[in-house]
């Protein structure tokens, strides 16, 4: 049950991977609707000592 936990995934990452898998196997009509929910252009920047870090794209496919 916790194979993903042993592999170092958090619950949220596990859920994200599982949802991607589910969306990719849906039938055409439902798939189009579902893929809209997958679209993201999120960017994150880690700060240190009051300095803004580089803005990096959060790639949903890159899980680690």
């Amino acid at each position, binding site marked *: 049950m916790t194979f993903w936990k042993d592999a170092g995934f958090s619950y949220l990452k596990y859920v994200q991977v599982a949802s991607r898998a589910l969306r990719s196997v849906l039938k055409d009509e439902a798939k189009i609707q579902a893929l809209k*929910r997958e679209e993201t252009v999120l960017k994150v920047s880690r700060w240190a000592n009051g300095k803004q870090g580089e803005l990096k794209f959060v790639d949903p496919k890159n899980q680690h």
Partner: protein
Amino acid sequence: MFSTAASAKAVSFLAGPLSTQTAGMATLKEIQIRRRSVQNIGKITKSMKMIASTKVPKAQKIMESARVYGAASNGLFQHAQTDFADSKKPLVIAISSDRGLCGGIHSSVSKAMKADLRKNPESTVVVLGQKVKIQLSREYRDNIALHFEQVAKTIPTWDETAAIADIILEKAKEEGVDSAKIFYNKFKTIIAFETTSIPTFTLEALEASPKLSTYEYDDGVLANFAQFAFANTLYWAVAEGNASEMAAKRTAMENATKNAGEVIAKLTLTFNRTRQAAITNELIDIIVGASAM
């Protein structure tokens, strides 16, 4: 000599009052240019208002469904009576966006954050959205640990919020955070929003809940649930913030269009008065010139 003067005036009269210049008063041309530019601005703000009003119901629908998620996971915390102990390492999260022209949305969140940071100057800060990041980074640069941009670019999705929640949780573990608060704009009505904060609980706080024993659960489920509840609460806050933003943008654009209309009315009056004054002056010149003959 007078006749040539009179005919010269007659020619200039034929050229029209647009070419007349009166020292000290704006020329008709300037007023006309200004009026036209304000009219264009009015058209732009009107169309922006239309766009925002079509986005509001959609944003509201997403917010309603997000509320269900948030209320469900927070229901457990209420029943188990989870509570904060005194927090030594608090985390505060600000929900805003990158988009401007939406009224007082972003400044409202910044103000609430600053008030909290004055009480707890050691808090770690996470900001969603460029606008609040810019405002907070003036005074509280050293507190900011993370900031996100392009959040909810089209619509808020649980998937994206879960990714954000995951990054925040990782950072929170690094910093040894023991409590978290989310500042967001709660959607009250289409013309009113309220900046509030909502607490989220760590796994430790959940495990220490007094009434937790009334629940039956397997090992490891609590840890998963704590993460899931955090993602839900974050999603709820982002969805409400998004709905408040669309409504505030609609109101701001409506006010801008109304103001533009008022400026146009005022300028039109000034234009007509100036035009009539110019014609009157021309007439006086001609009549005086003619009567002198």
